[in-house]
């Protein structure tokens, strides 16, 4: 950890599992003996609204919120939501793991707004200084057995990205924490999704 604390932003759409993801990361921090705060805002809806989680980890943390340009990492379960939070919170040089599978806002469907091209979203994150890995993690999770393991595939990629950075935990801890949180019957699919995600980031880093 570079500073006294470590900050993460998780962005997605209701139903994608961002809350579970934030809990897994929180457990990993707890396993390292650190304090954790997770601040969640989701829309009024159970599904489909923008959901984001602020995660703060350190020896001494009080409130759950991040301030501008503070996030050491951005985990984006949906590209547009990733950019929405990334543009405010991601620090220059921060890690960004982006699922490229789009979920259209209703504003786009009724013709009141345009969905930006994913390439433009990724480009914008790079311009903001992100160390980026972007992939269709939904497809990857489907290969692992269920599209619902997408969040875990993203976590796997993140586990690889932090090997090149300063983070309060490592792959082993994240994997352990994940095993403690996902439903038993989906455990194998989630482990597979985690490893596939890890591999995607590994290939990105090693330039394969």
């Amino acid at each position, binding site marked *: 950890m570079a500073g*006294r*604390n470590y900050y993460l932003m998780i962005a997605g*759409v209701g*139903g994608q599992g961002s809350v579970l993801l*934030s*809990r897994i990361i*929180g*457990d990993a921090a*707890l396993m390292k003996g650190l*304090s*954790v*705060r*997770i*601040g*969640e*805002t989701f*829309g*009024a*809806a*159970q*599904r*489909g*609204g923008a959901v984001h989680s602020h995660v703060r980890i350190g020896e*001494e*943390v*009080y*409130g*759950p*919120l*991040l*301030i*501008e*340009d503070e996030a050491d990492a951005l985990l984006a379960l949906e590209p*547009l*939501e990733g*950019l*929405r939070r990334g*543009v405010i919170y991601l620090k220059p040089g921060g890690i960004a793991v982006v699922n490229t*599978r789009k*979920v*259209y*806002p*209703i*504003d*786009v*469907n*009724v*013709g*009141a*707004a*345009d*969905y*930006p091209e994913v390439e*433009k*979203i990724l480009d*914008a994150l790079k*311009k*903001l200084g992100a160390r980026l890995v972007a992939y269709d993690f*939904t497809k990857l999770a489907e290969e692992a057995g269920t*599209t619902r393991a997408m969040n875990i595939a993203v976590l796997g990629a993140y586990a690889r990205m932090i090997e090149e950075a300063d983070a309060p935990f490592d792959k082993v801890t994240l994997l352990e924490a994940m095993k403690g949180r996902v439903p038993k019957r989906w455990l194998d699919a989630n482990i597979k999704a985690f490893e596939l995600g890890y591999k995607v980031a590994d290939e990105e880093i090693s330039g394969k």
Partner: protein
Amino acid sequence: MKHVVGLDEPGKRVILQGNEAFARGAVEAGVQVAAGYPGTPSSEIMETLSMVAKDLGFHAEWAVNEKVALDVAVGAASVGARTIATMKNAGTNWVMDMFSTVVYGGLPGALVIVSADDPEAFYSSTEEDTRFLAKGVGVMILEPSTQQEAKDMTKAAFDYSERFELPVFIRSVTRISHSSGDVTFGEIRKERNPIFFDRHYKLPFRYNVYGPFKYKGKTGPTAKHAWQLEQLEKIKEFVNEVPFNKIEKGSTRLGIIAAGMGYAYVKDSLIKLDAEGKPWILKVGTPFPLPEKLLKEFIDSVDKILVVEEGDPFIEEQLYAFMKEYAPEKPIYGKTKNQVLLRYGELGLSQVVNAVAKFLGLNPPKVDESRKKLKEEISAIIAPRSSALCPGCQHLGTYWGLRFALIKVASKFKDKWKGVWIVNGDIGCYEQGGYGIFAKEIIPSTKKESKRYMFNNPYEILDTNYIMGGGIGLAQGQYQAGYRDGPIVAVAGDSTFFHACMPALANAVYNKAAITFIVMDNSWTAMTGHQPSPSSGWTAMGEPARVIKIEDVAKALGVEHVFTVDPYDIKATEETIMKAILTSVEKKVPTVVVARRECALQVARRASRSGVNLTYYTVNQDKCIGCTLCVQLGCPAVGWDKEKKKAFIDPVLCVACGLCAQVCPVKAIVPAKEGVKLTEVK
């Protein structure tokens, strides 16, 4: 044990959501009766308690509304039990009658009220600060700054309540209730309060506010008021000793008074600004009454004061009153005269960092100009994401039927009416029918004449929306005022119906209001996370319960024309609603439509749990004529490809409800593969 908060493992350290922490506090205190009504951001307190109630041997219930929940809790405390009632800010408004009366004489058991406010109104109609309500009643208020404190304060609140025989009010906010943090468990109290009843226990006629209780030369309620005020004086002394109030010494003569989330943000800010130990801090855990001894010591040590609190300037105003006598020369910064913090919206860390930096004469963290400019450019391409109903939501069918029924009725009466219908909304998932589309710009009109607005989605159908049960009352007022430019409709969900609509429906029958009331019955209190309601068939503790049918209630209340329809049958829904509107207009009576279909999310979850793989629908691109009707349904799973001018369905989101297939005029929407449709799930 179905939830970690039930474990008897003192010293265990886990991540708890604030609401789970409140629940754990109640468990540690040996709660005997817990009652609440769901309301974001408070629902998980009772939800968590209901999961461990059976194993720990206490009673937990979802009451039909907050008022009843508090009445139940008061009843339990009147026979000596330790009780908790939970609610959101709006619900606290509902309980005020009992809350303000029960303090006249108090209770032998413990009564803890948790009220979750929602600064920034993430999930609420208002940003209301309910601390004012509790201060008006005259009880101790506790306000936690972390999840650990939420747990500890709740446990302590039971003791405080018993000590003074008065309710204790815990004020939470979204960032406590819906944030998570590490919490270390304490001991669980094993002892249970004896359950007894003595009408003259300690005070004569204790539970009958009109009883001839004589005190200080007065009788009845006035005497009990005098008793309460005496208790309050004792509480004022006591708060100087509670561990949640404390002074942190500083190296300067600058002082910060911080409470709740305000304290958390101040501490984070000082770390951020590398200024720990510089200002004096008075951490306030009891915003009412303020710990005056500590306050004096703090004021003596500083020359100027910054007040940081979430919500209204509640402590700040009390401080002004106090300082007028004690140290009028020392300036106060905060949300009033010397304003450094906004009075609306949530505090947030950014705002507090800036205010603290300014107060201490330090530089706040800054983003340089070129990066700011880059961020502005990037922000311009980000499309808004308006809130939407879930994929497969049965309300999509009801709103589709309602939209076309209104259009058809308007056209049928076009010579008689202006065709300007009014649809009054209510609180629940279906309130999204009034959230609108963020990306659209609205220009308000200035003429005082009825005007019809057309729309192509379900998110602009509601014309009014305020509070639980408000819509059906509003509809009657519009009718009684003589509004005849179009039909008057009100909608509400099943849980809302039991919460607040029954008296209003009786009123509509009694006072002959020709309105149409649509109850969108999905069998659950869905928006707050699928808590059971009288329409679910289950209690909070998982016991089977009798289903109260809304049609039966409506008929019993005197509604002569009650219709039932399945919103998954789009044609029938439109026809039924149309018939109900025409009946109310022609016969000049209220009519009721019950649009019943279980929440699609619940059905899809049940399918998933039982290993059933749902199919999904797909748009045959060759057949699609690009009419956009399916997109107008407003289902998040149905997308529109602007380039190809064709609709498509997101296979990950689709739950195979088949609504879009019903609205497609060319039958281009079909199941993509073998599998079960949502309607086939048991």
